[in-house]
Each structure stands twice: as structure tokens, then as C-alpha cells.
């Protein structure tokens, strides 16, 4: 049986895909790397089932279908595995947002595309969405710090919207405008995930776009872009 990444289940990003069980004759480097990804995927599944607090190493290795020893070859414990999972998810998210944003010429279209990419990713990966946006906060101070930093990485996309605006517009933006906009967006998305509505996140797109663009382009233009 040979392994083709294209056979990976579509609902997982490539690096979280499963290695088929049994002998596979793959180079050791690949297997080692893949084991790590499997453990990360295993943790995401276990956490979705039992929450971070309730998840044990045994749950992770069962979902990942690897031995306990393999787990400890990669991670010192549950916390370290969680951090790796968190970083993988947020990296994925950032890459997709970046690609969507960069593909547009106009800043406001870029923001719309970026928010859209974020919602699409989170809606298609409800387990990972929950891990990164809800469970991360209960996973200890190291992860909380990363969570805060990760939210802040979306601030510069909005700050770029200040460029070339009339003085009148700039005067009404404050130092905390972007922080409040990103915070509001993250907070709304988290609430929907907590409420078990991760899969419907894409329906928030027009609201979030309008909310985010309004301070820069005014509410009429924001509403226009939001409605596509």
C-alpha cells in the first residue's frame, strides 16, 4: 500500500492528514514528520471530544494510532503537544488569510477576502476552530500568551487601511481602533464556536466586513463592499 497525500481526507489540511496504518516503506524522515502531524491531529480530535482538561495522553495516542513511546519521542507532555497543535492551526489560518488578502488589488476587497478565508477555514475545521479559539484559553499561560499574540497578528492588515485616507478620517481613528475591531471580530467568532455553530460561521461574513471597514471607508461604502 503506498501513501499518496492526495488520498488524505479533504477535511484535514495536508499536514494534519493521516498516515495509513500498516507497512508503508516510506523514508524515516517522512514517517517521523508524519507521526508528529498525526499526534497533532489526534490531540485536536481528543480535545474536541473531551475538552483540554479531560484529554489524556492515552486519548491522543489512540486517536493518532501511535504508541505512547512515540508520543514521548515528539513531545514532553500534553501541554507541549497542544502548543504544537495551536501553532499549526494558527499558521494555517494566517497563511490562508494572507493569500486571500494579497490576491486583491483594493484594500477593502482584501479585508473582505481575508475575513472570508478565515471564516471558511474555521467553518470547515470545527475541531481545529474550537482548539485555537476556545480551548487555547484554558490550556495554560504559555498558550494564552500565544493566543493573544496570534490575535494581534491580524492588526496590521487593518492598519494598512489608514494609508492614503483623508486627514478627517485619520483624526477619528484612535490608537486602539484596530485592536477593538479585531477583538470584536474574534469575540463574536468564539461565541459562535462555543455555541456549537462553528459550521455556520461563514454567514457572519457581511456583518463582520461592514463592521470592520466602516471606520475607514464610512458606513455606506462598508455596507456596499460587505454585500459583495
Amino acid at each position, binding site marked *: 500500500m503506498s501513501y499518496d497525500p492526495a488520498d488524505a481526507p479533504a477535511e484535514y489540511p495536508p499536514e494534519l492528514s493521516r498516515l495509513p496504518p500498516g507497512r508503508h516503506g516510506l523514508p524515516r524522515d517522512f514517517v517521523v514528520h508524519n507521526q508528529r502531524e498525526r499526534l497533532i491531529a489526534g490531540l485536536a480530535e481528543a480535545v474536541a471530544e473531551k475538552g483540554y482538561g479531560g484529554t489524556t495522553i492515552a486519548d491522543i495516542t489512540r486517536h493518532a494510532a501511535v504508541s505512547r513511546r512515540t508520543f514521548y519521542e515528539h513531545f514532553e507532555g500534553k501541554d507541549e503537544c497542544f502548543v504544537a497543535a495551536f501553532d499549526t492551526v494558527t499558521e494555517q489560518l494566517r497563511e490562508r488569510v494572507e493569500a486571500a488578502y494579497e490576491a486583491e488589488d483594493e484594500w477593502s476587497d482584501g479585508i473582505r477576502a481575508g475575513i472570508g478565508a478565515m471564516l471558511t477555514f474555521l467553518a470547515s475545521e470545527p475541531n481545529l476552530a474550537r482548539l485555537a479559539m476556545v480551548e487555547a*484559553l484554558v490550556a495554560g499561560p504559555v498558550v494564552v500568551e500565544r493566543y493573544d499574540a496570534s490575535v494581534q497578528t491580524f492588526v496590521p492588515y487593518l492598519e494598512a487601511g489608514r494609508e492614503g485616507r483623508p486627514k478627517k478620517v485619520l483624526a477619528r481613528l484612535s490608537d486602539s481602533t484596530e485592536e*477593538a475591531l479585531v*477583538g470584536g471580530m474574534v*469575540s*463574536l467568532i468564539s461565541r459562535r464556536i462555543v455555541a456549537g455553530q462553528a459550521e455556520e460561521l461563514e454567514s457572519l461574513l457581511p456583518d463582520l466586513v461592514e463592521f470592520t471597514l466602516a471606520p475607514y471607508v464610512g458606513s455606506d461604502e462598508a455596507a456596499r463592499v460587505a454585500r459583495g
Partner: protein
Amino acid sequence: MRPPPGRQRLSREFIARHQRARIVAALAEETMDRGYRAVTVADIVRRAGIARNTFYDNFSSKEDCFLATQDFAVEESLARVLEAAAAEEDWEARTVAGLGAFLKYVSDEPALARTCIVEALSAGDAAQERYEQSLQAFVPLLRKGREHSEHGDDLPETLEETIVGGIFWVIYQRIVLGEAERIESLLPDLVDFALTPYIGAESAQRATARL
């Protein structure tokens, strides 16, 4: 405060209520000092200066006490917000006054603020859910702004949740970064943030300029 010796002058209910408030305050102070996870019932009992039995007369566990602390802070802060808002005539001024009262409460009560705005997020499912509900408590106050907005009917359905979430996030950041003393100075920025979607940037700025 211990009941006075000799004749009992305070009602049983008063003492009970007072004890709960004292225990809640002790939990918040301990949480601020060492983080919620590390706090034990023994710490709370010592800080409150009560017997362990008294703690368990009032609460079933540390978690139960934490939820009561959240309820206490939400109830108190909401009362201050409503009181400040009621003293004003129009929606705009009420929002400014209410937000000002909220920021003042947060900065006057650093232990409760840290417990309920930062620690609550990592204190388990029930606490996280309570936190979400507490944000929801402020939504109707803002929502009234739709009646005073020219385009009130067209505003996004989720607007108020998003504004409240944004305000809490900014406060959260100041607390986490150890800049709690800056919280009251955020008032003009946050007023601007909250009013603009309803009355437009220029009117919001006029409201901010009066601060």
C-alpha cells in the same frame, strides 16, 4: 466583620449575604495574586478570615465560588452602568456615562476585573459560559442606539455583540499587559468605537470632544 457580641443585631440574612460578599472578594484577591488555578479553598478561607465550614455553607466548591464571583461582579458593574446612564437625558449621553462608569468600576476593582475578564476565560467551561453571558448583559443597552440611528434598520444583526466583544478585548489586553491604570483613559476611544456605527463618525467625535 464579625457579628457583634451579645445580642444579635443583624438579621441572619444580612450576615449570610455579607459573608458571601467577603468570600467572593477573598477569591478575587487570591486569584489576582496567584492565578485561579493555584488558588485553594484554604487560601480563600484564610484571606476571608472565616471558618472552612462557613465557606462550605455558602459554596459547594472553589468552582462554585468562582461562578458566584462572576455573578457578583456582573450584577454590581451593571448596576453602576445603569445608575450612571439613568442620570442622562439622551441615548448618546447615557452610553458615554454608562461606559465611563464601567471603566471606572474595572479600574476601582482590579481584583474582580482580573478575575472576571481575564481568569474567567481559562477557568473552565462553566466560567467561560458565564463570561459570554456577562457580555450579553450589555448588549440591550447599546441596541437602543438603533432607535436613534438614521439607518437603524440596516445595521448588522451582530453589531452590538461585536462592539461589546471589542471593548472587552481592549480592556483584557490592558489588564494582561499590566496597564490596568490606563483603563479609564480609554474612554474617548471606546466611546468613539461604540457610537460611530449608530450616529456616524462626526457626531461620535462631538460626543467624545466633550469628555
